[in-house]
């Protein structure tokens, strides 16, 4: 059974007061809060196991290495991959950049096309812009429909033989839009196009299996998944990783080093030069365990129903305009809106005075904002520890904003 009070009790930060009000944290698409188990694991690493990995022939280093490689294994198992297909990075952004600089630079050439969608976060747009500039390739963009969705047909229109790669989000961080990945990936593959999925938002709300999706690569960040900051993942199919040259060179990624040249380890280690975020990776297993547990207890259904409640509550307020899919089943619990001509930053400031944390701004998606015809929106993004009472507090804070600022 899903018991929100039991979940909340695991997050120490949720008992904080902000400006003399209990904290209402609704910026989960930026980063989630951390359960005690994740905090304890990182603390425990530094307190009892700290050493560098893959180096020392002594107990501590062996423990650290075991923990690090065990975490890689847990990530692989969680998304249905093999351990050697999991590269640890600093975040999703770095994972995309790694893929672009390694796979992209060796597989995309002059006149080729790279396909993205209008929903993309800057992290899944700007690296591709740069690649296309370097390689004299063309960047093509699949537009969204009026309601912020993208269908498989919309993508197919762009699938010419020149399209080498499609980079697409699984869930928009602005509108919550869920893309029909499985269908799109199958279609792209029939066209011989490689697909990399930005799973930064998707994995927080859906169980993902790379086997069933059949994506060629997938990126995400653990800090959006109840884990620590500084740990991201690039998953790529074994044969894809095998054809990727390293892009960062140095210690730990080498097999043999002669004075004038070196031989590199195989994937994934060849992509992890230097000392990684070991203490952060210590938080990965508890984060995955937490997600597995709450999913079994019905967290996804809980978040969907909370999201439907939030949408209905916001829509009933005069002056609120919600952007994105009207059909809640096409979207995750991420809601962007405008209100009564009041600037989103002013709404966020008024909310903060009430202890409510929301994101206001362009959400690292300037082209999408332009398409929506706004400079910024206010966004609430929900997680398993949020409640209906918190949504009600948002609604009364909006009424305060109206009284104070509506002209």
């Amino acid at each position, binding site marked *: 059974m899903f018991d929100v009070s039991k979940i909340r009790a695991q997050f120490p930060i949720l008992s904080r007061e902000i400006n003399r009000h209990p904290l209402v944290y609704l910026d989960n698409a930026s980063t989630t809060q951390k359960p005690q188990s994740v905090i304890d694991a990182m603390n425990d690493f530094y307190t009892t196991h700290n050493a560098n990995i893959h180096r020392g022939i002594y107990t501590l280093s062996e423990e650290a290495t075991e923990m690090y490689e065990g975490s890689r294994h847990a990530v692989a198992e969680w998304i249905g991959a093999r351990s050697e297909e999991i590269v640890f990075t600093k975040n999703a952004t770095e994972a995309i950049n790694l893929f672009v600089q390694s796979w992209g630079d060796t597989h995309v050439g002059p006149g080729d096309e790279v396909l993205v969608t209008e929903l993309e976060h800057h992290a899944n747009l700007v690296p591709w812009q740069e690649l296309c500039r370097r390689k004299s390739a063309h960047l093509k963009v699949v537009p969204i429909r009026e309601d912020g969705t993208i269908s498989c047909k919309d993508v197919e229109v762009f699938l010419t033989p020149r399209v080498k790669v499609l980079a697409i989000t699984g869930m928009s961080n602005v509108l919550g839009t869920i893309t029909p990945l499985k269908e799109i990936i199958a279609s792209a593959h029939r066209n011989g196009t490689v697909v990399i999925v930005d799973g930064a938002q998707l994995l927080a709300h859906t169980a993902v299996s790379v086997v069933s999706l059949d994506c060629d690569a997938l990126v995400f960040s653990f800090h959006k998944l109840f884990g620590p900051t500084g740990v991201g993942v690039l998953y790529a199919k074994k044969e894809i990783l095998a054809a990727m040259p390293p892009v960062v060179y140095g210690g730990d990624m080498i097999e043999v080093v002669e004075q004038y040249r070196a031989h590199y380890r195989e994937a994934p280690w060849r992509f992890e030069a230097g000392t990684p975020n070991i203490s952060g990776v210590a938080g990965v297993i508890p984060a995955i365990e937490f997600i597995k547990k709450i999913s079994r207890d019905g967290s996804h259904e809980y978040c969907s129903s909370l999201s439907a409640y939030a949408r209905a509550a916001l829509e009933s307020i005069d002056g609120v305009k919600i952007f994105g899919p009207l059909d809640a089943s096409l979207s995750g619990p991420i809601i962007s809106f405008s209100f009564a001509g009041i*600037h*989103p*930053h*002013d709404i966020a*400031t*008024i909310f*903060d*005075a009430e202890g409510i944390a929301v994101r*206001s*701004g*362009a959400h690292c998606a300037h082209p999408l*904002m332009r398409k929506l015809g706004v*400079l*910024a929106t206010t966004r609430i993004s929900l997680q398993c520890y949020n409640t209906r009472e918190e949504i009600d507090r948002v609604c009364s804070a909006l009424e*305060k904003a109206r009284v*104070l*600022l509506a*002209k």
Partner: protein
Amino acid sequence: MDVFSEEILYHYKHPQCSAPLISPTYEATGENVSCGDMVSVTLSCDHDTVHDVGIVVSGCAISTAFGSLVALAVKGRTREEVLSWDDAHILSLVDGEVSPARKNCAFLAFRALRKALLK
């Protein structure tokens, strides 16, 4: 609630000198790229003294209010005087604090004004 002072609210709802000048001596635009807020500044000067100003802000309460406050503050001042102002001086145009996350909003109009005067 003291998020926005009475003074800020007044200037937000009734921005002063907020019509653009027809034939300005100096002009400039500015933008806060992080939020997209925009300002356009027009100034007319006589022997280096600002005698009229128009500051048009398309933005939040803080940037709009500070556009108005800055406009009133520069009228009758010399170019040199205005250029000698620093950020602290701008923040001191109102009583009370501007939170760190909102300081850029407060500086939007002033930055464009400096740019205009330095042209």
